[in-house]
């Protein structure tokens, strides 16, 4: 409970005075009478009611004190901040098609793997969730009344088994979005092996989606690393389907195709491929798998080699996909915060399971270590023309040039002095980081999708830098940075189970969770103004006080 006008509490010093006055007023006065004859007769008949009168007198004192206290407290305008959440709703869309029964290399079916991922998601959620299960294809196993707790839902999911029937997760999801209650936020968790990279959104719906899916492709590049000295480029190609596949792999150096391989892959086979190439002058190395997989456009692995530095980045697919996967690498560590523009100074404690906040229009993206605390001020909205990197020497901005980047809109961000401005426009900070040290907070005053930055090479580089900051520094450096003089470790494609070849990837769509009302948003704080009730009670006690005094 907080007091809006705490200065009113100074009036509490009146209370002892009031008590003293009332006690003084209620003391027994000595009076001499000619005879107690008649008074004693009253007492003998039990008419004096001394006890009840005494209690009434004391009650009157008590009521007066209560009145004063209630009045003081009501003028101090107490507000109860309630963090007691309402139940949050989640629909788990269960892809029960036959493909979910496919065995993976670790011996588990895709369904089982998805359920385990789901369990991990549950672990990050609070207990105030009520869950419905919706199967694709639809069946009588669906439970649509939001009656399940996390534990109950998990128990049922564990007992589910894919059945041989066709279904369309995307179509079901579309219908779900359309049917969703416009006034109630519902999280949708999709357990599917069909990665829904571009989930349909509905402007009137506030349903947010977290999808857990299987491999986003039937055939894909599983691992990739480069040995610059030896001029070797190691990669492995996986076939996640149950059919034999014959893809071809093309090596592109600085935009020119230099070699290609045709590979035959048996069902669920992962095969290594090695290219020997002089990489001394190469800046960009790309491996392109063709034909483009019908389930995913992620058919490219790209590495940027800087000979003079110890930094390298490898990623696959489009930048958005990278972000998705990069975020999925350490869900708990990546926090996106998008406060409302009309929010003045605020202080937000970031929990591992807390992702976005509020309904927002402009966004601030906060990348923070676990349990980090952000304290920023968000002002109005900015129209930004050209961002300028003010600290190119900062480790976050290494290799992240902002040339040609245009940001359409951003918020006016005001941060404490301890933050370093990395990018700004016309004096307004666009990207700031707290201090020079790693594992610090990084705040973006704009949403990347409101700019053409994702189309630039600096975008994934920056994200990797930022993620290095967010996740464990040591492991991050091992994973992402290596010296040209060292043997390059294989670049993991960010599957969270850290298997190098296959497995179920967890995908958190940043665009979706950034909308704030995601199922993973923190509990809203509700405020209850107590002053009217206290005032009413004080008036009642005043009335009772006068009534007691009058009788």
């Amino acid at each position: 409970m907080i007091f809006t006008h705490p200065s009113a509490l100074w009036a509490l010093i009146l209370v002892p005075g009031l008590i003293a006055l009332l006690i003084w007023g209620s003391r027994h006065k000595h009076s001499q009478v000619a005879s107690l004859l008649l008074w004693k007769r009253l007492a003998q008949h039990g008419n004096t009611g001394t006890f009840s009168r005494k209690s009434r007198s004391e009650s009157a004192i008590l009521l007066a004190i209560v009145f004063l206290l209630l009045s003081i407290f009501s003028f101090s305008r107490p507000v109860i901040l309630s963090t007691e959440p309402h139940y949050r709703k989640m629909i788990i869309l269960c892809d029960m098609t036959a493909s979910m029964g496919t065995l993976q290399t670790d011996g588990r079916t895709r369904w089982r793997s998805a359920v385990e991922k789901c369990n991990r998601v549950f672990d990050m959620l609070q207990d105030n969730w009520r869950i419905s299960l919706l199967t694709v294809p639809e069946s009588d196993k669906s439970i649509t009344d939001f009656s399940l707790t996390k534990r109950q839902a998990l128990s049922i999911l564990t007992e589910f088994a894919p059945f041989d029937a066709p279904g369309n997760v995307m179509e079901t999801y579309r219908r779900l979005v359309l049917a969703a209650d416009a006034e109630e936020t519902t999280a949708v968790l999709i357990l599917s092996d069909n990665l829904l990279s571009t989930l349909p959104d509905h402007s009137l719906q506030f349903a947010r989606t977290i999808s857990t899916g299987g491999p986003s492709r039937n055939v894909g590049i599983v691992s990739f690393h480069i040995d610059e000295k030896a001029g070797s480029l190691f990669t492995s190609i996986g076939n996640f389907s149950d059919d034999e596949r014959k893809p071809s792999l093309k090596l592109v150096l600085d935009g020119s195709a230099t070699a290609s391989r045709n590979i035959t892959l048996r069902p669920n086979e992962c095969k290594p491929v090695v290219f020997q190439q002089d990489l001394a002058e190469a800046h960009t190395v790309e491996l392109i798998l063709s034909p483009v997989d019908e389930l995913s456009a992620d058919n490219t692995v790209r590495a940027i080699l800087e000979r003079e530095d110890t930094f390298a980045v490898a990623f696959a697919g489009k930048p958005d996909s990278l972000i998705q996967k990069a975020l999925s690498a350490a869900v708990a560590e990546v926090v996106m915060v998008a406060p409302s523009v009309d929010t003045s100074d605020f202080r937000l404690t970031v929990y591992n399971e807390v992702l976005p906040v509020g309904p927002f229009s402009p966004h601030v993206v906060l990348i923070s270590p676990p349990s980090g605390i952000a304290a920023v001020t968000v002002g109005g909205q900015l129209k930004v023309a050209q961002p300028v990197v003010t600290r190119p020497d900062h480790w976050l901005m290494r290799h992240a040039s902002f040339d040609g980047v245009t940001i359409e809109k951003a918020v006016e961000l005001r941060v404490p002095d301890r933050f370093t401005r990395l990018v700004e426009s016309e004096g307004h900070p666009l990207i700031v980081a707290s201090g020079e040290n790693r594992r610090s907070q990084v705040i973006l005053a704009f949403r990347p999708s409101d700019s053409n930055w994702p189309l630039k090479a600096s975008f994934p580089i920056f994200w990797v830098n930022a993620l290095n900051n967010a996740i464990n520094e040591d492991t991050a450096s091992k994973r992402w940075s290596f010296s040209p003089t060292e043997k390059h470790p294989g670049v993991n494609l960010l599957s969270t189970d850290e298997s190098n070849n296959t497995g179920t990837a967890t995908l958190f769509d940043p665009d979706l969770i950034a909308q704030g009302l995601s199922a993973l948003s923190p509990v809203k704080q509700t405020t209850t103004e107590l002053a009217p009730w206290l005032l009413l009670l004080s008036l009642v006690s005043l009335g009772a006080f006068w009534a007691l005094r009058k009788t």
Partner: protein
Amino acid sequence: MTQQHPFDERFLKKLRLLEVDFRRSQSQNAEGSLSSMQLGGRGEFSDHRTYTPGDDTRYLDWNVYARTDRFFTKQFHKRQQHRMAILLDASASMSCGTPSKYSFGAQVAAAIAFVTLAGENMVSIATFAANRIRWSGTAHSHSDFPLVLNTLETTEAKGRTSLQQGIRELITRHPRPCLVVLLSDLLDEQDARRKLGALAAKGFEIDVIHVLSPEEIDPSICGNHVLRDIETQDTLMLSIDPRLQSLYSRELNKFVDGWRNFCDSHHMLYFLASTSTPFERLIFDCFRRGGLLK
């Protein structure tokens, strides 16, 4: 000791017009206040009668003999003197009130005594409390009035009430029935009524003047009080509120009604006199209408 007269001349003049109504004591007193036609003796001339042998020759009217040459004997109404005893409660409870019940009662007693003496009757006044009684001595005429005043003025209201003792002393002092005027607040927890009843049974005519102060009739105290009895020093802790005040008033009415009924049943006159009652109204109005004075 020279006593200052408590009443002014105007008031005394009015008092002289009054007379005590000795009712029952008329037949019982040897010297009643009502005159009877008697031959000779001291008294008021009434008539002549023809002399018959054996009449006292001292009452022959020689003037009439000189005019008529016949003997006539003078006849007189012989005035009989009645006796009144005034008992004034001088216990500590009578010291309460402003003016105090005692001083108010003393004024009333003095006025009644004055009227009695004006009617050439005898009066004696006693102030009494427990183990303490003071008699003024019997006053036969106005010249004795200072005796009465002296007794009243030199008595201090203190000690506990003892109506029984006062009555006992009265009987000792006045073995023959007389008119008794009792002035008291009657706040005596002992069985005073029984004693008064016994006194009435002996032929005493009793008039009771019940003196109470306004504070006793309508107590204005409110709140938490420790009441202390001025006589016994007993205390009683009470939270007095309007309801309790109303209960007290009811109890007081019962108390007064009890005395009034008792007096009625024993052919006594009963007067409730508040010390706030204008004195003249009490004497010239209440007592006259009530039959104590006429």
